[in-house]
């Protein structure tokens, strides 16, 4: 009696999903192919552009930006110089540029997709009820799982890496945008309404400016998550520092693995401090 499950056939969920993904691949290949080509070309261009900048100048620009963004403090500027010189010294510069392009593109796409969805969520209880579980799903599903359909859609390379990063890294932007807008004080929303603002006026003149810092915290999280995907994305052929880590792993080379890993950490810290400072509330 307790083993009644033995007599029940297991549901062919795996087959269903495979069939569904196959169906998507076949039906939407007209859509996926141009995305793949377009995005691939765009990223090649960005990488080439970045590679064309001499590392010395790149490092200097970053250091100067860091100096001014942190309110004329030397800490981040010095860290940027030392860290980037280290990466250059280890001959990982072009890998760094690859990774930087990947993170940058993925983050921008996340923000472009995430903020409107977050706004939608904040405006509609129904949208919030539908989207919240989807976000939970996106964040908890192991990243390796959606590498498989990513490859099916976009074959191997940097584009499926972006796709995987998008799924993994968009939720914080969506959630924080929603949270930020919902946190705007009732009285300010009432004031906007009482003076006869239209919906878009209220959104752009009151809600988004008020939610700015919360949304920026979400974007910061998104960028960090996108960065954390670089190693995983390298498993499906995305170039960059992640690939160095992966190949070191496959060959059991402790030293090179650590060097590449350390480079990722340096990049992570610089990007994190930068995004934190872009929209820091200067009046506080």
């Amino acid at each position, binding site marked *: 009696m307790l083993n009644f499950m033995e007599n029940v056939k297991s549901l062919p969920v795996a087959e269903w999903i495979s069939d569904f993904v196959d169906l998507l691949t076949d039906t939407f290949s007209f859509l996926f192919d141009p995305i793949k080509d377009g995005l691939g070309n765009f990223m090649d261009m960005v990488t080439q552009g970045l590679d064309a900048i001499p590392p010395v100048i790149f490092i200097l620009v970053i250091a100067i930006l860091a100096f001014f963004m942190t309110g004329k403090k030397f800490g981040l500027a010095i860290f940027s110089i030392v860290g980037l010189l280290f990466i250059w010294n280890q001959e990982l510069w072009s890998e760094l540029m690859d990774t930087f392009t990947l993170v940058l593109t993925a983050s921008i796409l996340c923000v472009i997709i995430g903020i409107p969805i977050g706004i939608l969520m904040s405006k509609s209880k129904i949208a919030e009820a539908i989207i919240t579980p989807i976000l939970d799903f996106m964040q908890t599903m192991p990243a390796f799982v959606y590498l498989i359909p990513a490859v099916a859609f976009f074959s191997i390379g940097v584009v499926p890496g972006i796709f995987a990063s998008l799924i993994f890294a968009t939720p914080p932007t969506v959630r924080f945008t929603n949270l930020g807008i919902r946190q705007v*004080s009732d*009285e*300010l929303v*009432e*004031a*906007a*309404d*009482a*003076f*006869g*603002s*239209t919906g878009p*006026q209220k959104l752009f*003149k*009151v809600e988004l*400016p*008020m939610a*700015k810092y919360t949304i920026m915290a979400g974007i910061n999280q998104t960028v960090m998550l996108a960065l954390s995907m670089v190693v995983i994305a390298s498993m499906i052929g995305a170039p960059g520092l992640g690939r160095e880590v992966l190949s070191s792993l496959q060959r059991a080379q402790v030293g090179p693995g650590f060097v590449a890993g350390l480079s990722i950490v340096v990049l992570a810290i610089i990007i994190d401090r930068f995004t934190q400072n872009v929209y820091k509330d200067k*009046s506080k």
Partner: protein
Amino acid sequence: MPIIQVNNLSKVFGKNTKAALQLAESGKTKEEILKETGSTVGVNRASFEVEAGEIFVIMGLSGSGKSTLVRLINRLIEPTTGDVFIEGENLAKMDKKELRRVRREKLSMVFQRFGLFPNRTILQNAEYGLEVQGVDKQERAEKAKKSLELVGLGGYLEQYPGQLSGGMQQRVGLARALANDPEVLLMDEAFSALDPLIRKDMQDELLDLQESMKKTILFITHDLDEALRIGDRIALMKDGNIVQIGTPEEILMNPANSYVEKFVEDVDRAKVLTAHQIMKRPETINIDKHGPRVALERMREAGLSSIFVVDSKRTLQGIITADAANEARKNEVTNLSEIIQREVPTVEKDTQLHDLFAVIHDSPVPLAVTENGKLLGIIVRGAVIGALAGEGEVNVNA
């Protein structure tokens, strides 16, 4: 025609609105309705009219529905039933576009916690109402500046709200509301977040501004002193119902029920009552007709030791004491002007009871209450004390 006309306006929070409204109509209390239907009656069939240029105060304790009521008027909260007419247009039945137009042109609101946009400068805050209307940059800056100057903040245009004190912030709130020159100002507990001294200043300033602006103001407060001070008429609310509407005097003197009575019990009457309300009809003699003999006779009849003297136009001339009149009769003086004391303690009819104390304390004779020099009445010490004690001797309609 009244500017604001509210007819049977109700708001029920919750799902079972119909049942709750029916119960409310049958006279059940808020608690009973909540128990039976799970819905809360925010405002129950409120009806009132506000005339142009009037300051109409809606007053009640927290939870009485006053803040809900003001939000029903500009439809920040959707009414369940009822009508709100602003200059004849029914806000409650408008589509969104129309509503937006009325909000932009006719209604402005001042908020309890100011509701200023912290990311905008003072000028940009004051400009907001004009900005959403699409008024061009120069014109709106000009109008906003003018209204900021009106509230005395012309020098703070580029500051941010966070840099200003509470009282100044609320001036910005007021300036923002005035900038688009609305018919109606809705002020939701506008001064309640300010400390008492600043609050009094703001009340004075609002009254001063009102002298020149003549807006129609709907003022929400939980502070009866404030209501009595600035209101032309007051509506008292309890549990979503309007319990009484009347002038401050009517509410004080003839409370509609025990709730209102309890409310006004603690009022500082000294600040509410005026000389006009506690004065008595004076005994007088006419300087043009009468002599010392008549004066003595009148004093004897009324049991007075002095009598006020007026001319034929009832303009106050002075006072004559019994001693002086006696002396005059003995010396065969017939003209009153020879024995009259011209120095008489005089107060205007609008003087607050509060300000009478010092005058009446030093005076051996009653106070004369005048208007444009004409004698209206007199106040004796006993009347002041009686009025303070809340005795019914006060003549409201005098």
